[in-house]
């Protein structure tokens, strides 16, 4: 565990930092309460489940994720699967941070 943490610190934000940042972005972009985003788990539905998340909000959400996590999300990366659940979006974002 110690070794994992040390290497994560060197290569960028850790998984839990990405998780916290992503929850904060969803809270800010969608105007949700902190308690609601704290309650998200991997299966929590996003696009098509949260009325706040329409296509304009998706554009804002992705741009904010890029800015706060210093990654680039290409048009072709954006599909239903990455936005369907919180777990899907988190896994996608983690992969992008590792790539970047």
């Amino acid at each position, binding site marked *: 565990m110690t070794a994992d943490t040390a290497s994560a610190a060197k290569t960028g934000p850790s998984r839990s930092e990405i998780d916290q940042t992503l929850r904060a972005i969803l809270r*800010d*972009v969608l*105007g949700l309460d902190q308690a609601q985003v704290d309650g998200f788990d991997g299966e929590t539905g996003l696009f098509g489940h949260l009325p706040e998340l329409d296509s*304009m909000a998706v*554009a*804002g959400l*992705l*741009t*904010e994720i890029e800015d706060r996590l210093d990654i680039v999300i290409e048009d072709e990366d954006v599909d239903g699967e990455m936005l369907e659940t919180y777990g899907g979006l988190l896994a996608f974002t983690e992969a992008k941070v590792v790539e970047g």
Partner: protein
Amino acid sequence: MYVSWPCPLPDGSTGEEMALRFDEDRSRRLLMIPPLFDEANKFRHQLVEIMRRFDANGVDCFLPDLPGCNESTAPLADQSIAGWRAAAIAAAAYFGATHVFAVRSGGWLVPDTLPGWIYALVKPRQVLRGMLRARSLAAREAGVDESSENLLACGRQEGLTLAGWDLGATLIRELDEGEFVPPANAVTIEQGKVGGKPLWLRAENDHDPAQADALVGIILARLAG
């Protein structure tokens, strides 16, 4: 509360634009520069909340419409960052501003002759990227394939309508290339210092009295010092 002001236009002539003002001929006079595009609408209510607080604390403030923005009848497609910057300088002179307060993309327009504050500055390319993405996502939902890359290449030559905003080629090139560095006498204020949720991100317009109090408090402390 509302007055008109003579605004320089891209063709060298002078047009007339509206301004919201709280003016009692006081010594401290703040030029307010709003965010551009969609965030102008999302932040308008909050900006007026902020102005009411300055007024209550003895500071005059002026919120001029820039050409092509808010109630302006000038075509947005004819405007550029350079043109808006010239308009902001003219507004500062016309209203006798002593300081400037700009929000988000409005920070790109602050006259470097005035001391002031830029709240939650954003990068030009980030704003452009958000608008390109909104258009390509909407196109995809409609079954049309429009990549951000192709849209940008086209927009740099011919201009482009993005998320309902009619942007000229000059403006798109400025947004795509602009590496904005705030003038030395402008202090940037990050959202973290103000606290609360960033209002410009919200899908629904909103305002937040606590954030307005915090922001005005930060600036009044500096004005007094």
